């Protein structure tokens, strides 16, 4: 599984109110949420993001609310993965449950700038920046990898109901 796109680096402490402000929590259609992705921090993001793009963060990405609206908005805006130096717990689970890889990579927010080309080889654990610089991310726990490979928790439970 390979993900390819441009980087959007938002640095440390990207909270769920930045990713999807509370005023939009009443939305239930993922396509509507996607129109407001990252609006608390960058009103241009939802208009400009392309399929496969990668959101980059520093420490504690996704802190705050349990709102799954946040990773849903990112996923349906076209984001292929989020890479950060660290994640808040609920966001990390929510992203994986949606089949959106959330990858931990120490130093990533310093190594990558907005607009860089990013290619992620999920099974090899590699991130390639601008076609040359190679970084590695912290291995995804096996159980979470199974969920990601299934395409998310919905699909995983459908396939594995007997052993759940």
């Amino acid at each position, binding site marked *: 599984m390979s993900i390819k796109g441009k980087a959007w680096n938002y640095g440390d402490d990207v909270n769920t*109110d930045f990713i999807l402000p509370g*005023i939009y929590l*009443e939305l239930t259609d993922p396509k509507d949420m996607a129109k407001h992705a990252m609006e608390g921090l960058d009103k241009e993001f939802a208009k400009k993001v392309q399929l496969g793009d990668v959101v980059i963060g520093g420490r504690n990405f996704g802190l705050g609310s349990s*709102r799954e609206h946040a990773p849903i908005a990112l996923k349906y805006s076209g984001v292929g993965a989020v890479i950060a130096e660290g994640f808040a*717990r609920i966001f990390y689970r*929510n992203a994986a449950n949606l089949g959106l890889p959330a990858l931990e990579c120490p130093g990533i927010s310093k190594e990558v700038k907005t607009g860089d080309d990013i290619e992620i080889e999920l099974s090899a654990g590699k991130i390639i920046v601008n076609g040359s610089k190679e970084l590695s991310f912290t291995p995804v726990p096996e159980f979470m990898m199974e969920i990601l490979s299934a395409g998310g928790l919905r699909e995983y439970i459908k396939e594995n109901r007997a052993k759940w």
Partner: protein
Amino acid sequence: MSTVAQKILASHSGRDTVNPGEIVKADIDFAFMPALTAALAFHAMYDMDIKKVFDPEKVTILLDHIAPATNIQNATLHKECREIAKAQNFKHFYDINSGVCHQIIPENGHVYPGMLMVGADSHTCTHGAFGAFSTGIGSTDMGAAIGTGKLWFKVPETVKIQADGSLGDRVMSKDVILNAAKQLGADGATYAALEFHGSTVKEMSIGARMTMCNMAIELGGKTGICEPDYKTFKFLEGRVKHDYTPVYSDPDAKYWKSINVDSDNLAPQVACPHAVDNVKDVGEVTGKAINQVFIGSCTNGRLEDLRVAAEILKGKKICSDVRVIATPASPEVYKAANTEGLITTLMDAGAVLCNPSCSVCFGGNHGILAPGEVSLATSNRNFRGRQGSTEAFVYLASPATAAASALTGVITDPREV
């Protein structure tokens, strides 16, 4: 050698003991959802080809974040939640007249020591104040939990917060947890359970313990836990109708890290914009002009919070440059405050009283801030844009500091009014 969190996860996954880092599948005792996340959870459950919740007595929805509905979009969401509750034959359903979920859940006897509870709201960690393992999850996880009665958990490390000594006059449990946020940082307890120990915690009321556990998530925590005692059992008496087994940490339990809070010398604390761990002693921010004060939320909307505010505001008038919005956390709290005369006191001082709900806290209901405005709130988050404009500023503090500041129009040490 186990902590409360480890013991509860072990007992709910058919194990004698579990170790931090292990992944376990555990049985869920109760699951609840606010409206804003409930519809998504049910969509997820239906997508898993599951039609009915695992037990209609152990799942509920609460319409608290926006209540009553403010527009057609959220009115439609409320309507869908009511239809789900009927179709699923829920034993319990809490409509817009009920209050904040984290107040309703204990008041109605859904929390008890030793249980494993999940809620589709990040402040579900509040209920650890009763010795439960209670954690916030997203909607897909909730879909799995309500559909199957099980969920996977990574067994957390535990961080010990040791608070000893006596809190001074008008210094509150909010100040203890803000001080812990200052010491540990907003990611200092990521993935971990917090356990609150010490003589200060023993002295605290149940409501005060709830305030601290409520904010465990603001330090990255998975849950916040106070060991149950006679106060816990007294609160639960008549509310919980079945037996339960309290769980305590072993004397040789292993903690990932520990911090101390010196309660004897703790000053009122203020979390400054735009981060919950940007905490200062009140003296460092005294004099900062404010436009709005919010007294309420799952953090500080309880009877004792309104009592402190009313004591400070009694017979006085709120500064004319400030508006105060006070929102009791539940009808039980509202009625008790009314009986004690607190509602009249607050209104006579010039406060607006709102119906029990999440109110101003999350910026989607009412009390929205304009660009450039400054708010002092007793709620739990001060992220940029949290309560309205991204150009507004939110400070967090205790109800005592909030009420004192409402009188003067600037951030004020509550011990000096």
